[in-house]
């Protein structure tokens, strides 16, 4: 990539409030190429940042640009992985049905799912190791498998930037490893991920860049430079014994 290429995601002056309470305050930040984690304490506005960038919740001010363009012009290049808890997993659908949804913008609004799109969805399921469970109702999958279905759905969007909201939340070790492998493949193919992440101990292992968020952008940059005890303490307000936590190697 040339230095002049616009960043995958650029946030300018983003302010979001829930009622009277501001959640994000004048956040200006650009996600670089590669894998980036957004970390911060509960209520820091991590998910809000992603949702506001995608226009899912209204912003009081500010804008988000994707690859230098407004969202409407770059939508096909942006994949989204929402929090697993945000949907009803009793919904009548199989794992493959859910992944197919990613391809809906490429189809008619009605009629059968074309074979080409179904194959693309099946390939995405294979990438997360769920081929065997393609026909299973999503409510009968384990939590980790559900998370991988969501990951497969994001992958099936065939995007250049994936916005992921807590992809590692409450998953088993096997799923965590499967997700990490997918993230690395995405990065190796020159594509990008911005993920809300809650486990500070794995940030250096899984991600190249980090944004420390607590209502405002506290610090951002390569993990080696920005993910320092001082910055972490600044973002978390010294509420946890994070300095020790952050240096723990992942299991």
């Amino acid at each position: 990539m040339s230095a002049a290429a616009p960043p995958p995601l650029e946030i300018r002056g983003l302010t979001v409030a829930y009622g009277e309470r501001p959640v994000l305050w004048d956040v200006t930040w650009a996600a670089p190429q590669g894998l980036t984690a957004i970390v911060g304490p509960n209520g820091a506005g991590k998910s809000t940042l992603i949702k506001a960038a995608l226009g899912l919740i209204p912003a009081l001010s500010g804008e988000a640009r994707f690859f230098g363009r407004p969202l409407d012009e770059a939508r096909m290049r942006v994949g989204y992985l929402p929090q697993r808890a945000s949907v009803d997993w009793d919904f009548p659908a199989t794992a493959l049905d859910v992944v197919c949804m990613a391809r809906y913008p490429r189809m008619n609004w009605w009629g059968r799912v074309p074979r080409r799109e179904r194959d693309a969805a099946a390939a995405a399921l294979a990438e997360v190791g769920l081929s065997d469970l393609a026909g299973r109702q999503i409510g009968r999958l384990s939590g980790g498998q559900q998370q991988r279905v969501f990951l497969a759905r994001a992958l099936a969007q065939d995007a250049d930037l994936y916005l992921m909201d807590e992809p590692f939340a409450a998953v088993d070790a096997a799923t965590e490893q499967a997700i990490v492998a997918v993230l690395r493949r995405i990065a190796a193919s020159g594509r990008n991920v911005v993920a809300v992440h809650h486990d500070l101990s794995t940030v250096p292992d899984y991600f190249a860049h980090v944004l420390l968020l607590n209502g405002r952008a506290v610090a951002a940059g390569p993990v080696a430079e920005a993910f320092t005890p001082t910055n972490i303490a600044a973002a978390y307000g010294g509420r946890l014994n994070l300095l020790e936590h952050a240096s723990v190697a992942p299991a």
Partner: protein
Amino acid sequence: MSAVDFLRLDLPALLAAVLACGTAGLLGAFLVLRRESLLGDALSHAVLPGIIVGFALTGARAGLPMLIGALAAAMAATLLITLVRRAARIESGAATGAVFTTFFALGLVLMEVTGARSVDLDLDCVLFGQLETLVWLDATGWGSLLDPAALAGLPRQLHLLAGVAVAVGLLVTLLWRPLQILCFDPDYAAALGYPARRLELALNMAVAAAAVAAFEAVGSILVVAMLVCPAAALRLLTDDYRLQVLGSAAAGAAIGVAGYLLAGPLPAALGGTVALNAAGVIGTLGGVAVACAALLRALRRGTPRDAVAAPGA
């Protein structure tokens, strides 16, 4: 019973029951999947001011002006619910409750102010409908079914019901995929670029239209029952989206027919002297259907099925 009697006395009511209950069942599938079952109840109340205004402006209890008024009211109520939810940061159920009671109260006030009350909105009819009063006097035999002049003589409620049923059927067909994503994961639908808000609005307007069209024939209680019961029953029986949606419509229509037949014609044929209110029987059957579905599901649970796989399989 002769064919002419059937065509004149039973067919209009049967058709009205099938169209009203089938349409409500179809739309109810989406409400149940969105976990907004009571929105049907809310919308069927919220349309009242629109109906009254449509009635007051035209001075007649004609279908179309009242339908247009109802749609306007439903749209206003939907937008207001969204607005209240955002501005006050309360959950959607509370916002819905606040808005629909306000609209219904406004409708009652308008009813008094415009004098609509004195004309013809009788409470029994509103609640239970008047399915049995639908007759087709122009029918002279089976040939009437193909005779445009005779068909024009069908009760106007049937014309409205048929029009709304066709419109709702088209809407659901054309928006099949967007509606599916909207029901499962509205945020994801919006992230993919689907106009999620406008889809929600379209769905709510369709529910309002179905409620208004069915209202006179089968009554508001039955509309609410048919928006919830068939879809809830199917929800207990199937894990297939297509079957859930189409099955809800079919179950609604079937319950409509069964309820009408059980209420009058069947007891009469068996020599009984008591006829029941058809809408009441249909509503009761809706509840029975849900109970049967729950029972069936419980029985099926007893048989072995593939267990949840171990994590990380």
